[in-house]
């Protein structure tokens, strides 16, 4: 059909395990910000948007640095090319079932 990759790498946050140490935001500010209490806000809330190849290294570093193992890097199905309706894609259903 096309040359788009069929899977993407995303960071996933376990909000219960997270204790707000904040190392991840230091290592990967491209995808992770901190709220005023020091807890990470991933750029898709509890998960990141797909990690670009050039940022996989820093993403792995962020995962490795987390003292509570709250951050995981996971290969997910690629999102459908429907910008307006991201939540309708099976990838999201699989994601929801995973929680």
């Amino acid at each position, binding site marked *: 059909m096309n040359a788009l990759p069929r899977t993407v790498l995303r960071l996933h946050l*376990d*909000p*219960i395990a*997270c*204790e*707000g140490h904040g190392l991840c935001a230091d290592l990967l500010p491209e995808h992770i910000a901190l*709220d*005023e*209490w*020091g*807890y990470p*806000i991933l750029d898709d*809330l*509890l998960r990141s948007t797909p990690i670009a190849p050039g940022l996989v290294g820093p993403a792995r570093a962020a995962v490795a640095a987390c003292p509570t193992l709250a951050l995981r890097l996971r290969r997910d199905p690629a999102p459908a090319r429907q910008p307006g309706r991201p939540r309708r894609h099976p990838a999201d259903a699989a994601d929801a079932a995973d*929680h």
Partner: protein
Amino acid sequence: MRAGGSALGVPILLALPTRSCGLARTAHLLDHLADESAGQCGPCTFGLPAIALDLREIARGNPGAPAAANRLVRRLGTIAGRGACAHPDGAVRLVRSALRVFAHDLDAHCRGLPCAGATEAYPLPGGRR
């Protein structure tokens, strides 16, 4: 339900006396919701008490009310969707709805003109006031 802009949840119907203040009432509800947080996720553990305080500041019509309103709106945008359960999402939805429905009151409170009923105490479950 989602298509109609609603979500699965526990419905509560409160009949407000005519002179009571919707914002003060919402602040009380948020105090309760903050107390009921399971304390598992940071955005809920710290976020709900913070927005409850903002609401109380607004409800009292203190000089700090306009700043509290700005802070509240910003905080609402960072709390929802970041907990393991939907408790913080529901609390945020309640506050957003209150700010919309009581928009006129919000404006008056921010100008230092709180409702007459804003300082009334309301009973909460567990005997808190």
